[in-house]
């Protein structure tokens, strides 16, 4: 798996110790790589090696489906219905963990809300602002902050996924979840009138973002928010982990993306993604591996992940844990979402997502109109065949 930081990584050693204690004749080896390496070269290399892992971390959606197609994903449906996992998950936890409705290929681990609006409460109080519930109110809030001389919204979009996530959420709200999914799966054009309309909403944020939007890294944008150089930032629930060490004294909270009343999608949808562990179909120790994953999500395991700052996907994940209320409410928001939308680069065709994110970056940077940006994106997809 990829590293999630020392607090989380060390809990895998604890899990291994627990497993060894319960099954003295078995041995667990935990391999943790740098997150970026794991995602790109680490896992594929391991899976094609002679020492392929028995279980491995993955994001739900197409990456998981790809492993299943390659023969590296074991169907866990039967195991998850057994006593080993009894009562540990709600049905919603398995969203995007099946392949076209056939089988479940992951033991759910954690969930991340990929995009919310984090705001500096002191700025809102000073300016007499309230949390906006509609897009027009949201723009009015941004305008009021801009008029006060502050930067309303900071993004660190150097790697394109931060604004790409926002564009994903706006698009699903405006065009509806089905057309959004079809577009991201390459079944509908990126430059449809509906998508152009959706990008119009993204463009309406451009006057309020930092000039360096496409030059700044995401963690640098977090720092700008923590240093109160910007009143709001749109990013995922993992901001809480950075805030624990970098935002001492900052009074901040979050709200979900405001509703776009004319939109065809669910206006209270949540943009999020779940993670889990897959079992290698080629493993010689499938039953033993399932035993380990069952321990990972039992009450003791769940508590360990929650204390390490994660939002486990199990039932009642924060029982007996002194967790930050914002972390708890984010987890509840994810687990109780009426509609869960996945970001373009996590739930869909990655090349379509890349073109979509290019367009979003051009629009938020003010270098292209929605129509121009999406025409270019579609043209690039067409040219690449």
């Amino acid at each position, binding site marked *: 798996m990829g590293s999630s930081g020392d607090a989380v990584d060390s809990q895998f050693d604890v899990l291994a110790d627990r497993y060894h204690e319960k099954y003295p004749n078995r041995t667990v080896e935990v391999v943790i790589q740098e997150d970026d390496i794991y995602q*790109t*070269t680490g896992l*594929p290399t391991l*899976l*094609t090696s002679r020492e392929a892992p028995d279980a491995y971390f993955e994001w739900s959606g197409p990456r998981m489906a*790809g*492993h299943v*197609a*390659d023969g*590296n994903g074991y169907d866990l449906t039967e195991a998850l219905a057994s006593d080993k996992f009894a009562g540990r998950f709600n049905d919603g936890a398995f969203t995007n963990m099946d392949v076209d409705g056939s089988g479940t290929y992951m033991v759910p681990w954690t969930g991340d809300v990929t995009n919310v609006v984090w705001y500096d409460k002191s700025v809102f109080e000073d300016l007499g602002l309230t949390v906006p519930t509609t897009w027009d109110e949201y723009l009015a809030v941004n305008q009021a902050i801009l008029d006060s001389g502050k930067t309303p919204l900071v993004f660190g979009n*150097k*790697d*394109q996924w931060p604004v790409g996530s926002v564009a994903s959420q706006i698009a699903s709200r405006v065009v509806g979840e089905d057309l959004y999914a079809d577009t991201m799966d390459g079944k509908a054009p990126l430059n449809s009138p509906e998508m152009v309309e959706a990008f119009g909403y993204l463009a309406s944020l451009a006057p309020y973002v930092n*000039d*360096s*939007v*496409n*030059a*700044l890294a995401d963690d640098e944008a977090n720092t700008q928010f923590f240093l109160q*150089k910007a009143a709001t930032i749109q990013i995922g629930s993992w901001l809480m982990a950075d805030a624990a060490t970098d935002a001492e004294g900052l009074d901040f909270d979050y709200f979900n993306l405001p509703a776009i009343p004319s939109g065809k999608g669910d206006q209270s949808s949540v943009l999020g993604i779940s993670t889990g562990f897959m079992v290698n179909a080629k493993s010689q120790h499938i039953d033993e591996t399932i035993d380990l994953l069952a321990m990972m999500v039992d009450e003791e395991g769940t508590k360990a992940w929650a204390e390490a700052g994660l939002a486990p996907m199990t039932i009642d994940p924060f029982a007996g844990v002194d967790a930050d209320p914002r972390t708890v409410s984010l987890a509840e928001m994810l687990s109780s979402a009426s509609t869960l939308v996945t970001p373009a680069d996590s739930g869909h065709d*990655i*090349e379509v997502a*890349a073109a979509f994110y*290019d367009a979003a*970056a*051009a629009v938020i*940077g003010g*270098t*292209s109109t929605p129509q121009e940006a999406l025409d270019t994106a579609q*043209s*690039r997809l067409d*040219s*690449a*065949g």
Partner: protein
Amino acid sequence: MKPVRAWTPYLLLAPAFAVFAFVVLIPALANTGLSFANWSGTDTLSWVGLDNFARAFRDEIYLKAYGNTFIYIGFTLIFEVFAGLVLAGLVTAAGRKTAFYRVAFFVPVVLPMLVIAVLWSFVYSDDIGLINGTLRGLGLDSLTRVWLGDPSTALIAVSLVSGWIYAGFYMAIFYAALMRIPKNVLEAATIDGASQWQVFFRVKVPMIRPMIEVAILLCVTGAFQSFDLFYVMTNGGPDHATEIITTYLVEVVFRFHDLGYGAALSTIMTVVVVTIGLVLVRLRTKDGGNGVD
């Protein structure tokens, strides 16, 4: 003394050739083979003939990356080779006590690229950067830019950093060549009434022309291999304004997991680089290479 048998040199070269074949030749051939396939790295490989190559010539981003790479080569020839030549000329003209300058100009060459990239990202920062800070201090706010976030300035901004690093390297090799020019040649030019500039451009530069040609070859092939500076400073953005062949290659292979297409792109790149290299070498040998080498 015993005569050397005909096969002895081949025998002596065999171990080195075996290593070369194992680490360069065989992987290169395997990569070329993979160019004709569709493969994600873990799925079943399927042969697609020339499809990947046809796709490459339709791929707008790949073509843009080539354009950017060639523009970058143009910038590096100016900011690295020409600037290095000028610096070497100034240092040699200054005579003694130039060691400090030579060391100072060369220091960037030995710094880790990652450190340089991060350092210059701060220099170019729009709000806390040295450049914009200086401009604001001089009351020239209208000239401030988001240097790395503006498609019109990002490529030249990264190229200037490349120049800052390597101008000192080329200065060092040109300095060594300039110091080997016979003194009597320079004295004769001075006696004939040539100014310092005339001596430099009409006597010194022609005499170190072979070294300049080598520098151009190194600079051009090096520019094709550039990656880390771009990856850290801009990651190919904004809007692919700094996308060069290597950054796009990494995106195709590691983000899209399209290994067959990536292999085709790298095969094309190899052919282009080798062709350009051979042309430059050919021009150099055709010209006879007169001067101080």
